[in-house]
């Protein structure tokens, strides 16, 4: 394992845009001349199930799958999924978690399961470096619910070895031209959200 290694786990629910987020991160790393592998599973899991994408960046990457408990960053598009994925993080790893709350039908229709009352504070008790993000409200404010993706990437961008310009270039390459400007605004909004502004103790 190389010292430059940077492992990012992105989780969410099918249809939330997890895969596009990991594409943009991969583009940034590739443009920076680093080795990159990413892994995800398609098919049945897309139908409202849990979706996860592993992104591994280093001078030389072997496994496309993150070693359990070694992720440097975990990004979650949904609160409870963030809690579920916390065990992938290394001890001083960073969690970026959208406050989005998606309660599946299996919970509403059955007495056997329940959705945790407050997954965000459960996570805060566990993971020291944790940034909750009001990604849905910011996206709505910017006029497009699909921007949650880029807002979370903006938050992440403060904690990667890559500069702002590199993120901008990657977004220009991966996003349709007419949506580039609004995505750059979303990136900026995300970049303003840090451990300090989110009120978490570093």
């Amino acid at each position, binding site marked *: *394992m190389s010292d430059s290694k940077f492992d990012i786990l992105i989780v969410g*629910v*099918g249809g939330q845009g997890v895969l596009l987020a990991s594409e943009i991160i*991969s*583009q940034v790393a*590739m443009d920076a001349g680093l*080795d*990159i*592998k*990413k*892994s*995800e*599973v*398609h*098919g*049945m*899991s*897309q*139908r*409202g*199930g*849990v979706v996860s994408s592993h992104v591994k960046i280093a001078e030389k*990457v*072997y*496994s*496309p*799958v*993150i*070693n*359990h*408990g*070694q992720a440097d960053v975990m990004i979650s598009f949904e609160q*409870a*999924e963030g*809690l*579920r994925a*916390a*065990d992938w*993080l*290394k*001890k001083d*790893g960073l969690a970026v978690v959208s406050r989005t709350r998606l*309660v*599946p*039908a*299996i*919970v*509403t*229709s*059955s007495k056997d*399961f*329940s*959705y*945790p009352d407050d997954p965000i504070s*459960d996570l805060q008790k*566990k*993971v020291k470096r944790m940034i909750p993000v009001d990604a849905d409200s910011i996206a709505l404010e910017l006029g497009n*619910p699909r921007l949650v993706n880029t807002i979370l990437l903006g938050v992440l961008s403060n904690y990667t070895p890559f500069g702002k310009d590199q993120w901008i270039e990657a977004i220009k390459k991966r996003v349709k031209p007419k949506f580039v400007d609004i995505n750059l605004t979303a990136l900026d909004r995300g970049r303003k959200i840090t451990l300090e502004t989110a009120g978490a103790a570093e």
Partner: protein
Amino acid sequence: MKELLSGNEAIARGTWEAGVKMAVGYPGTPSTEILETVVAKFPDLYAQWSPNEKVAFEVGIGASLGGARTLVTMKHVGLNVAADPYMTFSYTGVGGGFVVISADDPEMHSSQNEQDNRIFARFAKTPFLDPSDSQESKDMLLTAFDISEQFDTPVMLHMTTRISHSKGIVELGEQQKPEQTKFVKNPAKYVMVPGHARGRHAVVEERRAKLADYSEQTPLNVVENNGSEIGIITGGISYHYTKEVVPDFDYLKIGFGWPLPLKKIAEFVKNHKRVIVIEELEPFYEDQIKAAGIKVEGKQYFGVCGELSPARVAKGLVDAGLLSKAPPVAFEPEALFPRPPVLCPGCPHRAPFMALKKLKVAVAGDIGCYTLGALQPLNAMDTCICMGASIGTAIGMEKVDGSEKGTVAVIGDSTFFHSGITGLVDAVYNSSNVTVMILDNSATAMTGGQQHPATGTTLMGKPAPAIDIEALCKGLGITNFRKVDPYDYQATHTAIKEEINKKGPSVIVTNRPCVLMPKRIMDEPYAVILEECTGCAACFKISCPAIAASDELNERGRPKAVIDPTQCTGCSVCAQICKPEAIVLQSQLVKA
């Protein structure tokens, strides 16, 4: 030029670089994106979906014998369907180079079993190559075509989900222009009647010996010396998982997996204190190495079920006493609610399963999105075996049941064309009382909405005759035939109830398109009148992701329902089953 490509995209690129003239397959996770990428990026190349893997393989045989380089793609269980031509094509050998992609699914991310198709390659006595990442997927595909032509054999490229769906950086190459020959009549080679086939079997055995020599020489089987006393024999994705954990051990990386380079392996084992074989699923290499009298260890530390991972490899090496401890895990996993895949909002399969649940009949199921009808809270499908199995299974159940009531088979449109038609022929021929429901959503939906013989378009986007399911069924002799709108719950319920009580086979076709593909369907959403909602939870039990529990509670403290207007497609099924009539179109809610 470098690009970030998935294993499947790298194979599509390799297909173009190899100068392939025919790329053919049937969709199946994790193989589907290969042909989709071929048509998206290399429109000059001819590619097609066939109705099933057997036909695809046979189309491939014809193209190869016609002198063209040919790629055939399928998932692991697809090769079961294509096994018949595969076993004998091994005897005849090829014309133009022939490579079959077997995309295996260890861990069963989207499959009904996790069979290890390396065994199939050996069974058919054909070589297989085992890439470990995207770059190798492309490089080995090119080598596979050369091997196929040099040794006159079909070659398998063994992919797994983690190779197919992981992306890595790939160095692109130029396109080769292989010379295309014409088909040359040669009955002793291509007409496999007993007299000819006996001769060909001997040729296959000679070929095996030549391939074994090749396996010893090829750089695809490579030793990496790091000066360690411990040697690892591995291939495919397991190579990278192991390198992640113990990069400094010595490695014998197997890229050419059958026949194994047993001399090279014996030499490698002789030079090391201990040698561990690390491979996913079956002890395929380990058993053959041990059978050759060479001492190695392996599966006792790693197990046979499920996919490996760096963590599992580390644990196995700890158990073997070769690693002091696995990397620490800081946070305990949480025991949370499950989040299984579900039918989409507006999915036309929902109401048929609600009706089947209510009717309490035995339902033989099949492979597709509708398999989700078996899961909570619908619980309305009782078997799922393989593509096309529903009809035969329902006939068998019905024949031994003895009651007057028929059984039900549920099958999708693409699966019906894949291998349901022969089941229906059986139902007619043997006068079964089975009721076959063809859930026709005009797409191969589970794999991403691919075209099929009744969609009216081909893989390459060209118009095609759409096969008429009704005419087909009636032509087979089905007299109890009806179509029903699956958005009409009561009509669907009535149709099933009537048909299961009829003598002889019945077919019910539900005819609403998939809400996602090829076109996203979004009609006016429904909404809940909270004052009218009693919190009875009937709508929760239809498992629609657009329906959630609201913060408002009824007098017994149970939540009332709320509908997410961004997800609701306006299918109206929940409104039809809402007894207090609390679910109305959003525009009517505003008026109220």
